[in-house]
């Protein structure tokens, strides 16, 4: 892990990059990285996330600033701006059942080609997908997802980059931290090595490339 200034971290992200962004309706989203993406005006982004929060919050700020080309998410119902841009065909939105989305990301991080899930069988979600029978039950083959960068909101990071998360701010964060080429973390608090007991580390330091302290 390397400590990095916020502006320098965001400068690593090229226009057109694919980003996995942790958070659920903005809770657990690395808000300062979002603000800096908007300030630097990084365009044509592909966002993989549970949702696009709401206007003015979290990923919603990237949508407001029209920096997003494609969204892969389970829910955009609480962000009318995302829906408007989708209806006007200015962005593409792939809607994925939430349990399938997290498993596709987990597959990407865990070296799997995908997972078999019963969710979506017999619905529009199965269109274009392989259906596989196992022990008489139907499953859809849902393929792995990866991204160029994972933007992670953690609670604690020690000086090495071992991470813990807080309450419902965990959500997609620990899974996404494994599924991108580079992992950029904001931590609410940076603490000395040893402060986080080994049993409590959720994301091990070797997975973390950069940490920005929120201060």
């Amino acid at each position, binding site marked *: 892990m390397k400590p990095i200034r916020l502006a320098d971290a965001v400068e690593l992200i090229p226009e057109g990059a694919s980003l996995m962004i942790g958070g*659920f*309706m*903005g*809770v*657990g989203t690395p808000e300062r990285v979002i603000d800096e993406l908007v300030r630097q005006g990084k365009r044509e982004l592909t966002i993989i996330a*549970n*949702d696009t*929060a*709401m206007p003015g919050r979290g990923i919603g700020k990237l949508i407001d600033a029209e920096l997003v080309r494609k969204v892969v*998410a*389970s*829910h*955009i*119902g*609480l962000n009318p701006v995302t*829906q408007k841009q*989708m209806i006007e065909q200015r962005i593409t*939105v792939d*809607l994925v*059942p*939430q*349990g*399938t989305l*997290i*498993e596709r990301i*987990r597959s990407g991080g865990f070296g799997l080609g995908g997972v078999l*899930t*019963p*969710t*979506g*069988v*017999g*619905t*529009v*979600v199965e269109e274009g997908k392989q259906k596989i029978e196992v022990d008489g039950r139907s499953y859809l083959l849902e393929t792995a997802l990866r991204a160029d960068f994972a933007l992670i909101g953690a*609670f604690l990071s020690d000086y090495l980059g071992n991470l813990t*998360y*807080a*309450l*419902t*701010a*965990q*959500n*997609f*964060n*620990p*899974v996404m931290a494994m599924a991108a080429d580079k992992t950029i973390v904001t931590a609410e608090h940076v603490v000395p090595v040893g402060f986080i007991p080994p049993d409590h580390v*959720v994301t091990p330091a070797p997975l973390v490339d950069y940490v920005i302290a929120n201060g």
Partner: protein
Amino acid sequence: MLVNLGIGIPTLVANYVPDGIRVFFQSENGLIGTGPVPEEGLIQPLLSDAAGRPVTALPGACTFDSAMSFGLIRGGHVDMTVLGGLQVDQQGLLANWMIPGKMVPGMGGAMDLVSGAKRVVVAMQHTAKGQPKILKACSLPLTSARPVDLVVSEMAVIAFPDGRAALVERAPGVTVEQILASTEAALAIPDNVPEMKL
């Protein structure tokens, strides 16, 4: 028992748990033991429900990531889910996640919940703008190929034994004829249809 409540009418279920039953409520964003909305001044921004609103956590609560949360749901560990509905057909198939061309919010966790929970209950208005919502066949995209177990409306309780809709209870003061007039689906009517006990 572990119960997941959807947004809207289903949220109200938490207010009517009988004494003597231990219920843990799950929020699919990663919480078991969801408590009421905090008093002002006690909001913890990192503790929210599945709509992103601040909640509290009850004694014995635990939090986890989304892979665990949906493992609980898909894996059959959730005893019951109560969800809203747009349409239900006479076999119990549910449509509750989109109206093509009008409302495309995304399915969120609904498809996983209907496919995975042990018991699926739909809590909804019996009709929408006077039109039946319990139909011969859903015109809207389905949420799952798995039928729901029970529909509870302000008029009736309907179950789906053997894949066919059957009236179980009627709301106080509502007649079987009124229910039939507000229902398009073929509805089996037993000899005795008791009133709901409220």
